[in-house]
């Protein structure tokens, strides 16, 4: 692919989704976009790129962004963050929000739903501490098509075996041929909505817990810094932010600090959690 055409794609991806690609990923563009170019009757990926310079076909651009983003996810990914949610975050919030009895959680790159559903199962299984509470659980992603899948709550045998403990499968899923359907009581705990992390999330209000895992790794430093700023604005002063295993705030923002001794857990720099520690 000629470099100018590569640059057109790189710019579209960065502007539309934050995704940052370098020219050594040229083959990836080719292979992932070839089916789209074909479906839209372009002679090649290169021809499609040249055309995009002069038009802004939203539907086509959405398909391109969708094809280039990684949706890989699984239930209880990395295990540890979910243990931390259960053993550190939930006990704190059960006390700190006792008066309002409201808890707001946001899964900000929810993909096909495994992350928010894992949290929903933990909350459900914890039972009584939350009875009578208003649990407001929002799950968003840039991709409308992956969110449709998430809403279905329908998973393959392979997907339900990656990370999901067997007891949870027994308690919260119904078998349907070779698929496993999540029970409605878990599905109904979550509100799915399309949202681009580059946009302004203030309409969602302030959250007690934000999961933003394994999405910032695809952004360049400047974009990460911008997103951290937005997330900080949407997080309660004593709230918690979870990042992915390969993600950090170090050198990118002063808004957040690592929570001592809990990998992947971050709090606001002015948080009470740091004063107590």
């Amino acid at each position, binding site marked *: 692919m000629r470099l100018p055409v590569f640059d057109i794609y790189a710019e579209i991806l960065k502007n539309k989704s934050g995704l940052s690609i370098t020219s050594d990923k040229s083959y990836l563009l080719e292979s992932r976009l070839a089916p789209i170019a074909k479906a839209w009757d372009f002679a090649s990926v290169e021809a499609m790129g040249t055309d995009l310079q002069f038009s802004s076909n939203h539907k086509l651009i959405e398909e391109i962004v969708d094809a280039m983003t990684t949706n890989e996810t699984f239930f209880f990914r990395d295990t540890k963050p979910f243990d931390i949610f259960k053993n550190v975050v939930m006990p704190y919030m059960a006390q700190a929000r006792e008066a309002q009895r409201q808890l707001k959680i946001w899964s900000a790159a929810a993909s096909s739903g495994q992350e928010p559903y894992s949290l929903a199962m933990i909350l459900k299984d914890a039972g009584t501490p939350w009875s009578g509470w208003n649990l407001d659980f929002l799950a968003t992603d840039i991709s409308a098509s992956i969110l449709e899948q998430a809403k279905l709550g329908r998973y393959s045998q392979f997907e339900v*075996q990656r*990370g999901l*403990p067997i007891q949870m499968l027994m308690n919260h899923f119904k078998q349907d041929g070779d698929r496993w359907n999540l029970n409605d009581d878990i599905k109904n705990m979550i509100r799915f909505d399309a949202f681009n992390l580059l946009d302004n999330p203030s309409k969602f209000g302030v959250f007690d817990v934000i999961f933003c895992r394994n999405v910032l790794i695809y952004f360049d430093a400047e974009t990460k810094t911008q997103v951290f700023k937005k997330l900080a604005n949407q997080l309660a002063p004593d709230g918690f932010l979870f990042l992915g295993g390969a993600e950090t705030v170090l050198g990118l923002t002063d808004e957040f600090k690592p929570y001592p001794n809990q990998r992947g857990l971050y709090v606001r720099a002015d948080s009470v959690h740091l004063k107590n520690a």
Partner: protein
Amino acid sequence: MTTCLIVDDSRVVRKVARRILEDLNFACREAEDGVFACKACEEEMPDMILLDWNMPNMSGIEFLEALRKMPGGDTPKVVFCTTENDMNYIQRAIQAGANEYIMKPFDNEIIVSKLTQIGLIDY
């Protein structure tokens, strides 16, 4: 080293499982049905048992029921690994004292994930 007994009547499956588990630093022994597995456990209780369901002589579920009655037989973590993927089978296995359940086909990611769940490998 964590010890493991692989119980499956298929040599190929035992070999695949063994390779994955040895990569995870488990010391493996093999048994080709429930009867051999009982003998292996009488000799030495493993920390973990990877267990097929359908086998000649003594099935996985019969073995599990026998194991849990043996002296020291409550200690090994038992992970079923079988083509039986019906919820009824899963429930029966868990009731009989299985700790986890893998539906074949499996790969090393699934094994790692399940062993993490039951605390046999650290995350």
